[in-house]
């Protein structure tokens, strides 16, 4: 199976098989290609190459509808139910024929819903509105739907991410029941202990390639982690040249209930790059949003250059000299319709334009300077942000924040979806900024990047920092901390 998005090859010839009556775990770092593989199997993406066989029959042109007919069901982390309808209505919508003017048999609908829920041991009333159910209850409803549709292949994408211990046990029992009834389950999870408790076989993906399918019994945690990271950090990263100076940012027991982060203590020094590793959902972006005042902290302290400050809006964060280059640059980093010059001055209007009127000359000059300085490839300051490539958009987003002359720069996935050339240019820029005395906090899911760029590495898991590692660490140690295992 192969699949590319633009220049990015998400799947490079992955082979995967699933037997009836087995739980097959899928494991890999962020961006290893798990989601893409799942989307190909459920028909959400069309593969560029490769073939799919179900019960020995070749399937071409899989669409979400035909995948459904073939008995493929997927249960996502966030259940896709209609919150204002009842459980029975939701199940009915999935299972009943979709003709517009058929008569709804409410009694049968009710009865079937009750039966399905009973089969998986869920104590949920078919009349309950989905809105009133907890997340795990909604997942159980999803499983009931899958069961009712006679699914032969059930895909579970991190089903336990939001479950309590007790709910997990219930879910495991349901999964084991499914297996016993001959359903093939593809189980995706970052929690190694679940994989050992539940799975029969495990396939590890890395950089869009399958690095091996093994019986779970033959593996241990250490060997799995080795498979997941298993590559050398190449020497392409520019070496650290800066000596760390004074502490710029200091977080003390910082927490934010709404953002799901707690008890964060961290120092970032001038001239230092602190990498933030962790898996998706570990709370790294959430922490950045707390520091930047998007979801303000409700406990703990933020000290900037030794002074205690409170930040309740992004505007205040900017005023304090904090800059945040957000993760999703197309949505939040660059306004695509606006010229790059406008984008670059967006955060510093009161500084470049102290008088009444905007000074287009100054704006243009600033844009030209940054374009030159960061090597932005665009036809000029008037080029709309949307006309640039991903890497160049990222540079524009970076320029906007460097223009604020920050003391602390928070980068969230600075090279995500950026081609190799631009990536190494961005790395050089980050290095140079650190050398010039900027304190940099870099969130990245790209493990080699974290290892190659950081002076120190903070690893987050479950909304808090679980390990502080030095630059000399290796991928194995970082991944072990991110997965919650200390070797």
């Amino acid at each position, binding site marked *: 199976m192969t699949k590319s998005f633009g220049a990015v090859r998400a799947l490079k010839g992955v082979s995967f098989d699933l037997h009836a009556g087995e739980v097959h775990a899928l494991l890999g770092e962020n961006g290893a290609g798990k989601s893409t593989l799942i989307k190909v199997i459920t028909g959400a993406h069309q593969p560029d190459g490769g073939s799919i066989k179900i019960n020995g029959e070749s399937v071409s042109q899989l669409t979400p509808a035909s995948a459904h007919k073939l008995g493929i069901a997927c249960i996502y982390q966030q259940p896709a139910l209609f919150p204002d309808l009842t459980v029975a209505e939701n199940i009915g919508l999935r299972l009943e024929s979709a003709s517009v003017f058929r008569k709804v048999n409410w009694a049968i609908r009710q009865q079937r819903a009750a039966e399905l829920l009973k089969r998986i041991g869920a104590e949920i009333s078919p009349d309950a509105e989905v809105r009133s159910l907890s997340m795990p209850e909604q997942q159980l409803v999803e499983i009931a739907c899958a069961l009712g549709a006679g699914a032969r292949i059930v895909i579970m994408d991190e089903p336990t991410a939001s479950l309590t211990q007790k709910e997990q046990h219930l879910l495991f029992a349901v999964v084991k029941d499914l297996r016993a009834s001959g359903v093939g389950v593809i189980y995706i999870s970052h929690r190694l202990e679940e994989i050992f408790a539940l799975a029969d076989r495990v396939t590890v993906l890395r950089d869009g390639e399958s690095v091996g399918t093994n019986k779970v019994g033959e593996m241990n945690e250490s060997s799995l982690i080795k498979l997941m990271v298993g590559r050398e950090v190449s020497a392409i990263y520019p070496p650290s040249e800066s000596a760390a100076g004074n502490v710029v940012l200091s977080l003390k027991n910082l927490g934010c209930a709404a953002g799901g982060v707690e008890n964060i203590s961290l120092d970032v020094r001038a001239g230092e790059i602190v990498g933030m590793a962790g898996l998706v959902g570990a709370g790294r972006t959430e922490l950045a949003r707390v520091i930047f005042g998007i979801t303000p902290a409700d406990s703990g302290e933020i000290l900037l250059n030794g002074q205690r400050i409170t930040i309740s809006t*992004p505007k205040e964060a900017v005023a304090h000299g904090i800059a945040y280059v957000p993760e999703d640059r197309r949505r939040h980093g660059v*306004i695509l319709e606006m010229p790059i010059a*406008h984008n670059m001055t967006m955060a510093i209007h*009161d500084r470049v334009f102290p008088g009444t009127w905007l000074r287009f000359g100054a704006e243009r000059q600033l844009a030209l300077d940054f374009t030159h300085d960061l090597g932005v490839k665009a036809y000029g300051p008037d080029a709309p942000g949307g006309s640039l490539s991903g890497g160049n958009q990222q540079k524009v987003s970076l320029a906007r924040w460097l223009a604020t002359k920050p003391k602390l720069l928070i980068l969230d996935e600075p090279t995500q979806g950026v081609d190799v050339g631009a990536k190494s240019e961005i790395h050089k820029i980050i290095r140079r900024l650190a050398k010039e005395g900027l304190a940099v906090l870099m969130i990245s899911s790209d493990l080699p990047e974290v290892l190659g760029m950081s002076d120190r590495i903070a690893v987050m898991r479950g909304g808090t920092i679980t390990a502080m590692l030095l630059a000399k660490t290796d991928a194995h140690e970082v991944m072990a901390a991110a997965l919650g295992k200390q070797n």
Partner: protein
Amino acid sequence: MKRHFRELSVAAALLVVLLGLAIVAPAFFQPQPLLSLLTREAPTLVVACGMALVIISRQIDISVGSQFAVCSVCGGLLAAKGWPLPLVFLSSVLFGAIMGAVNGWLVAGLRLPSIVVTLATMVTWREALRWQRQGEFVNLPDGLQWVGLSQIAGQWTLILAALALLVLLALATKHLSAGRFVYAVGTDAEAARLAGIRPQLTIFFVFVFMGALVGLAAMMNVVQSPQVDPKSGSGLELKVIAAAVVGGVAVSGGRGKLWGVFVGLLLLACISPALTHLHIEAYWEKAIQGAIILLAVVADGLRTRKQRN
């Protein structure tokens, strides 16, 4: 050139209509009726400028017609009490700004959808006025009409005032940070917020400004007649939204230019007199206006789809 393509094409359409009239019905270009037409449209232009800003910030205000009526009547009553003209103008602007602030607070402060909020305030102001005045006209004192000038001088004053305001606002949206922020918020409020702009505050002030402009426009209309009609301004919201849309303001926010709105308004306004001169029955006016609006929206839709692909 490319950046003004949308506005220029509307201008071209207007030019074609005017040229056609020059050939077929040169009587259209008699100075006095034309002057009257422009005078009638001067207040509409002021409101349309405000509406353009509201739509650029990805909001809508359909209560402007009701605000217009309230400001007209209140201003008229103050004038009838003998208040001096500048003070009457100022009070009307203030009334408008207060009503705009109510909309702005509900939309930006409570984050309610502006279409529903302004629908509610539209009905509320209009009905409150009906209940209070029972449809009674306000008689204005002598000397108020045409701001105390002769009719021709008064007409020119209003037209030039509206044009001056248009130029001023067009410059302001381009050359002031506030203008840039309106565009940024309308394009992507979350991105603007992450850049340290306060989207809700921006939207609040856009509504306040809208109200203030309505107050000014109401007075520009009041001084054109000896009485104030409490039903004035009905249908105004549709007229100005139409002018904005035809003039190239994107309903999805973030795009549009005030001079385009001016051209759009002229195009829509000259249809009625053109029909008279072409001896076509007047009830075609709405149909033709509707067709023009539809054309503008379809053209925009096709253009964005092309850009997306």
